[in-house]
């Protein structure tokens, strides 16, 4: 229902979007994930027609909206709502804030009053009508902003980093609400976030936005476990990215030579092919020598060369002929008696490795 066709966007000399094409399906939760400044917000603003692309087409329900006149634009925009990263409360009561979209559409007062209460209920702020909007907390204000956006019953809801400035409790509430909206009303929800995990929790499909381009579009599983290139892999937290060459392949089980180390991986790529392999740091496990009989095909001995505590987890860098990054719980770290400089046994499954043929451009 929303389609970008070779969209380019420049602000002055800065290329914010470079040839972006994708389409969003009616009724899905579609998420743009990317670092700050990658162009996520611009994508949402283009959909809402707050910006005009430098070149390319944007189709909404089949209409190219980049060429529309103001009046027609407003008609299309009125089927959408956008919630901005920074909620901007207007002066006056919560009621006045939520009612404004309906007032713009000349809805009668009784209907407005009914729909405002309905929206407040949806965001869990029943009875907040008379409060002054500017006195609300950040989380409450963001919920009011969502109520304000949904009270017009949009077909498409655009959310720009809806939880970026909120604490975990408020974030959970908002995320729950987003899921509800899709389930109850079948609204198409398009959101941007820099939080991978939030993308995974909410989205039907994810588009990874890196430096003004879409790096990959797919389900969270595809993005997290089968990144298409280095940039996407980095973005989604795949820490182990190694270049090698396939030396054997037996019925989908490939042996890959990485810097003299033989790594087994599930892949159909034929021998002699240069490849890049990707592995998530959580997929590496450590064990005491001779303690387990693992079905994993990849077993190595290595020396721990870096230890970085990350709350309940620990990130380790191990030199096992190739340098590998692993994340384990603080508890296993202690139980295994691991420490900087120590030798350790580690293993990972052939199926945990994602193999991509290497091309010159990658």
């Amino acid at each position, binding site marked *: 229902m929303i389609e970008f066709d070779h969209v380019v966007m420049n602000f002055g000399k800065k290329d914010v979007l470079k040839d972006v094409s994708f389409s969003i399906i009616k009724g899905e939760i579609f998420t743009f994930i990317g670092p700050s400044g990658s162009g996520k917000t611009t994508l949402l603003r283009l959909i809402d027609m707050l910006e005009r692309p430098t070149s390319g087409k944007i189709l909404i329900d089949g209409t190219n909206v980049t060429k529309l006149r103001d009046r027609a634009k407003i008609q299309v925009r009125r089927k959408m709502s956008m919630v*901005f990263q920074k909620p*901007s409360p207007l*002066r006056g009561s919560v009621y006045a804030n939520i009612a404004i979209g309906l007032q713009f559409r000349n809805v009668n007062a009784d209907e407005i009053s009914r729909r405002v209460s309905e929206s407040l209920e949806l965001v869990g702020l029943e009875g907040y009508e008379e409060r002054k909007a500017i006195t609300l907390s950040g989380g409450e204000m963001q919920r009011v902003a969502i109520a304000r956006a949904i009270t017009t019953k949009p077909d498409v809801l655009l959310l720009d980093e809806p939880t970026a400035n909120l604490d975990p409790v408020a974030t959970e509430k908002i995320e729950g609400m987003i899921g509800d909206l899709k389930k109850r009303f079948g609204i198409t929800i398009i959101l941007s976030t820099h939080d991978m995990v939030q993308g995974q929790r909410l989205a039907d499909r994810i588009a990874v936005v890196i430096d003004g381009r879409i790096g990959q579009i797919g389900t969270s599983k595809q993005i997290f476990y089968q990144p298409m290139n280095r940039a996407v892999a980095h973005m989604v937290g795949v820490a182990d990215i190694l270049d090698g060459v396939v030396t054997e392949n037996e019925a989908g089980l490939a042996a890959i030579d990485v810097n003299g180390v033989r790594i087994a991986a599930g892949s159909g790529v034929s021998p002699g092919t240069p490849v890049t392999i990707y592995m998530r740091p959580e997929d590496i496990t450590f064990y005491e020598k001779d303690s387990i009989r693992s079905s994993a095909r990849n077993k190595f001995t290595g020396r721990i060369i870096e230890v970085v505590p990350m709350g309940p987890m620990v990130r380790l860098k191990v030199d096992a002929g190739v340098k590998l990054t692993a994340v384990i719980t603080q508890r296993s770290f202690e139980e295994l008696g691991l420490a900087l400089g120590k030798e350790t046994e580690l293993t990972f499954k052939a199926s945990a490795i994602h193999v991509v043929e290497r091309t010159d451009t990658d």
Partner: protein
Amino acid sequence: MNEIVEGIRQAIQLIVSLNPEVLDITARSLYISLSATLVASLIAIPIGGFIHFKQFGGKRGLITIIQALYALPTVLVGLLVWLLLSRSGPFGFLQLLFTPTGMIIGQTVLIVPLMIGMTLIALSGVSQTKQDTVISLGATQLQTVITIVKEARFAILGGVILGFGRAISEVGAAMIIGGNIKGYTRVLTTAIALETSIGDLPLAIALGIILLLIALIVTALLFLVQER
């Protein structure tokens, strides 16, 4: 020294006893300056809105000129309007020279630039995000302008009050255009100038106290408005 103390004593007596001449001058001053403020608001707020919301060449230059006109000397405005309204001037046929209406015109000209400037500042105080939010909620251009002006209303009102403050306290334009005719175009400032020069200190002081009170009230209002 005695003369001053005596002057202040008599001045207070004039105010407390509601002296008809004092009341008459005060009422006329308020009428003329409030009218000028109203007319100037009707001109300055829409122009300020237009400049803020429209993109056009020379916008920056225009704003700079407007800002320069904040300090427009009152006697210069007096002279300019006098030339326009005088018998041989282009608007002489209206016969507005030495009338309260003429004074309203003069004060309006004087405070319009200030009020346009204040409107611009007030509107740019409304964040771009807020404006985008309003547009994204489905507002037409007109609805957007109205909503943003409403958002900035207290800041705009601050500019209006400032304009009134300048109008009621100016003497140059009122003197030149009004002519300080007793019972017709005599206002607080022109009366003070005259009474002081002819030595009627109690009346001058009484009017001065009233002018000071008005200024204080205006400042207090401005403070209250900006606290909102």
